[in-house]
């Protein structure tokens, strides 16, 4: 609940004054039946037109004051709620972006997005409703009862029966419908998933001519949804009739006992009228209160989820003490590194190697052999479970995250570009990069030609995810993006998978010629991509099973030979060379 206080900062005035104004309006509202009773009991009884007019004037005044107070309260509520919401959203977003890979994996990207959109909105609405209604509704409900007691305490006992009954009905209905609302949400999600799946697999479904059974599955899910909806509907449809029934039976009782007391001269008809009004007012206030409680339970659930999220400490944190730069004999070293995404299941086991500055190193192996995990560790998206990684002779955990990542140019396996322009994307890691740097990076990445061919050049718009570029173009842009950073260490993770062989070869040639000072890690499944590296590490099931040059490995590493054979790299021509 700490998040409520910290983010409400600056809005305390609104948080207090809002409900005060609302309360004021409610008090005025409670006075209305009394004034009306006066009109009946005094004005009409005594044939006093002036009195009636005077009370009428008062009623008008109450209306004006009430409206003014209410609108002031609404204003305060909006200012506070949306100020709070914006502040909370800001906090949550920063927190999400500070989480490390392990936490993001655990929570899931989808949930994170729901947190910051739905949950924040839910809490924000809660604050808004709190200011607007949390005081008014209970005050009206209780105030009406108090006023009734002031008129005639014995008749008012009826309120003590009808009000709990109404509350019981509201509680019963809410208790029986709330869980079903969760089910409705679930089956709606199911429908969404089914239609997404159907669109995704349109080709396969049609290839197997399974449209009919797909429709059947969807209709079943839909029928389930409508049957739950109707079932809930039957219960919630009873809310208004039942409460109406109870309140009106209460009125009936009021009239009956009112008549008895009136007959003994203990109450006036105007007072009975006022009590009838209070009964209706209680009912309305209670229904508002019930809706409010539903909203609040949602807001509270959201608050809990958000608090839980905010409490997660990112397990990866940088060192805040700046590092002295020093030259070490080895640029990058792995010392008996073990790592597992899930406890007890190692993705990497006993990885040991050392790389000199400026060298090009290849990593090869099949899917799931742990190649990408290496990159994740160097970038500290995850931390090693055992052993350590040294950069320039110092443990990477002793650098600040910013410092560490600044030295690395990373080309991830899945190509992703941000919405904006080519320039914005290329400048991602180096906002100061000038045109010359960008074109140079594009040239090496074999992307200069196609960017030049665009009329807007570097300022060509990029759609979300880079949808308006082909896979190969996207890949070349991501390579250029990493190069524009002028990194000391360049990691290319399967970065030529979408390139044809000719472009791939040209890329490797350009990289070799232009990155003398840069240490390059080439991660690939293709032997042709890495075969010219200074040293090749062969990985299998999380271990290094061979190291050396292409020729060396061909003779002494069975796994490597197998890979090459399967890729038909060594045929007669190759051996002859």
């Amino acid at each position, binding site marked *: 609940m700490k998040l409520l206080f910290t983010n409400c900062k600056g809005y305390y005035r609104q948080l207090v004054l809002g409900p005060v104004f609302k309360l004021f309006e409610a008090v005025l509202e409670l006075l209305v039946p009394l004034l009306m009773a006066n*009109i009946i009991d005094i004005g009409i009884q005594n044939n006093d037109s002036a009195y*009636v007019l005077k009370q009428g004037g008062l009623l008008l005044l109450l209306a004006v004051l009430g409206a003014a107070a209410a609108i002031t309260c609404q204003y305060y509520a909006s200012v506070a709620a949306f100020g709070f919401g*914006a502040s909370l959203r800001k906090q949550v977003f920063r927190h999400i*972006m500070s989480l490390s890979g392990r936490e993001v994996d655990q929570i899931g990207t989808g949930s994170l997005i729901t947190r910051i959109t739905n949950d924040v909105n839910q809490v924000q609405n809660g604050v808004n409703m709190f200011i607007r209604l949390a005081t008014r509704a209970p005050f009206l409900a209780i105030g009406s009862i108090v006023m009734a007691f002031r008129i005639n305490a014995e008749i008012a006992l009826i309120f003590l029966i009808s009000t709990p009954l109404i509350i019981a009905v509201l509680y019963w209905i809410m208790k029986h419908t709330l869980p079903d609302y969760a089910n409705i949400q679930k089956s709606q999600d199911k429908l969404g998933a089914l239609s997404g799946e159907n669109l995704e697999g349109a080709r396969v479904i049609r290839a197997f001519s399974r449209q009919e059974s797909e429709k059947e599955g969807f209709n079943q899910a839909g029928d389930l949804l409508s049957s739950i909806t109707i079932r809930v*509907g039957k219960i919630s449809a009873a809310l208004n009739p039942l409460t109406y*029934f109870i309140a009106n039976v209460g009125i009936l009782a009021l009239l009956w006992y009112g008549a008895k007391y009136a007959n003994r001269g203990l109450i006036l008809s105007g007072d*009975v009228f006022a009590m009838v009004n209070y009964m209706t007012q209680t009912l309305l206030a209670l229904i508002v209160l019930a809706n409010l409680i539903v909203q609040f339970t949602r807001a509270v659930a959201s608050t809990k989820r958000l608090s839980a999220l905010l409490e997660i400490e990112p397990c990866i944190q940088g060192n805040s003490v700046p590092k002295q730069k020093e030259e070490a004999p080895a640029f990058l070293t792995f010392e008996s590194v073990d790592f597992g995404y899930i406890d007890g299941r190692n993705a990497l086991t006993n990885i040991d190697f050392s790389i000199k500055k400026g060298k090009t190193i290849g990593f090869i192996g099949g899917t799931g052999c742990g190649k990408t995990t290496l990159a994740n560790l160097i970038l500290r998206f995850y931390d090693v479970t055992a052993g350590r990684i040294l950069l320039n002779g110092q443990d990477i955990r002793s650098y600040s995250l910013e410092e560490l*990542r600044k030295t690395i140019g990373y080309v991830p396996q899945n190509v992703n570009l941000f919405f904006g322009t080519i320039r914005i994307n290329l400048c991602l890691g180096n906002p100061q990069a000038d045109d010359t740097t960008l074109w140079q990076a594009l040239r090496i990445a074999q992307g200069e030609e196609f960017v030049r061919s665009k009329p807007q050049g570097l300022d060509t718009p990029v759609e979300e995810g880079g949808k308006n570029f082909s896979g190969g173009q996207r890949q070349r842009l991501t390579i250029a993006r990493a190069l524009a950073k002028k990194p000391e260490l360049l990691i290319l993770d399967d970065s030529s998978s979408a390139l044809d*062989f*000719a472009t791939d070869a040209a890329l490797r040639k350009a990289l070799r010629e232009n990155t003398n000072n840069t240490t390059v890690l080439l991660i690939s499944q293709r032997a042709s991509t890495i075969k010219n590296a200074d040293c090749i590490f062969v990985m299998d099931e999380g271990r290094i099973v061979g190291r050396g040059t292409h020729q060396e490995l061909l003779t002494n590493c069975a796994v490597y030979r197998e890979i090459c054979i399967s890729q038909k790299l060594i045929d007669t021509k190759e051996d002859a060379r």
Partner: protein
Amino acid sequence: MNPSILKRIFQAMRPYKGNLLLGCCSALLQVLFTLITPVLIGQGIDCLVGKNQVDFSQLTIILMEMAGCIVLASAFQWVMNVCIRKISALTAQDMRQQAFASLNSVPLSTIDQTPHGDFVSRLVNDADAVSEGLLQGLTQLLPGTATILGVLVIMFCLNPFIALVVVLVTPLSILFAKFVASRTHTLFRKQATAQGELSAYVNEMVGGQSLVKAFGYEESCFERFDKINESLQTSSLWAVFYSAAANPGTRFVNNIVYACVGVFGGLAAIQGALSVGTLSAFLTYANQYTKPFNEVTSVLTQLQTALASAQRLFWVIDLEAEPQDSTDAIAPSHCNGLVEIEHVNFSYRKDIPLIQDFNLTVKPGQRVAIVGPTGCGKTTLINLLMRFYDVDSGEIRIDGTPIRQLKRSALRSMYGMVLQETWLKNATVRENIAYGKPNATMEEIVQAAKAAHAHNFIQRLSDGYDTIIAPGGGNLSAGQKQLLCIARILLCRPQMLILDEATSNIDTRTEMLVQAAFEKLMEGRTSFVVAHRLSTIQTANIILVMNAGQIVEQGTHAELLARGGFYANLYNSQFAVQ
């Protein structure tokens, strides 16, 4: 409000007209009994004239009548609510089903060209909006209108003068509501845009979190976020403020009506033109009369959203379906695998010609390799062979029969297709393997899995063949998904194959095994293979070389190398490392 959409919604409700009739009648009766109650309460109050003057026998009758009215009003209100809930939920479900059915019969070009998220949102969110909108609209509009009319009649019967006062003051509230609606409409649109922008941005940044981190992009990213966040804050503040102001505003008008009725009624009572009970009834009616007016605005916006959503659903339902199979279309029981392509022209867009005068004959059992750089349009051929798209002109024949004269289902079942993007259902492994042959026995399924080298890893899954595959195949590796897709084909044993880079995601060692399985499968079967792998290409009977969507060369490996053209370049580039 668009009358034609309204008409279509009513048509959609037709199957439930019994419920609709019942709901309407209940609404009328509910209003009737609700409206009688205040008169009875007024008469009851009139009985309390003073000490020892209360007419209990009269009061008893009134209270009995009142009890009856209360019970009936409650009961009819419940019936109305239930009926309308049913109608709205079922109507929405019907529309959703129709929309889904439509999606399964539209040409693939429609699915390819429309963002899937948009379709999903129409099927889920819009159908929900229709259901809720109809519910709210009908439950409030039906009794609301009836109440306004009923109250007017009763008030004029009770006292025309005071009734006139009420009628004259209430338009104030409508004016006010109009003002609010005009203000909030644009503001809410602004808010929705800002919310959408924020969601998109968060989506992008959280999805690309590792990029943001790797490139130290955090600060700029926060700056941008804060800007969007601020604009969202401002727009929602005013939107919500104005719409929330509608409440006190209408309450204000109510209170004025109430005060007027009180004063004029009081004065009339002094002159003896009105009893106190009638005055009390009037006061209740004044409230009841204005309430529907206040609700009308919110109901109208609800209905408007429902209509807009209905329109979006109708759009899906009305999408043009693939042309039906012709009535004399045939479904041959056997296929030899002779494929003839003659003078075929095709393009996705009329202004950009793609495949022009394409001719090819593939004899039964031959292997066709389709090669070319990424994005060269290799999938186009698959689209045409499977009739996902129809050729613009020319003809494709199988065993001499033009494919237009075949049933689509028959044509498609002749091919076994493994696409580069693996697709699996959110169902068990067993159901996925048996997707093309739902009645396959467990034995057949295991056999297919074994042939695809998937059996071993399936057994290691938590529930073996009954393991449920997560949406999008999340709990499987890319290679495993591919193996399941291969097993799915192996179970059907189709006469022809279409393989789209089928094995590029599988690690090299597994790939060797899969290749072997494919080799066996391709034996004697006509097959079209899209691949970068030269090993597959070299053994093909025919190589189609594609570039920029067009077929640029055609021939065997040796022929093409000798020609020294595009293919030769492509082939040599793999070895041109030094």
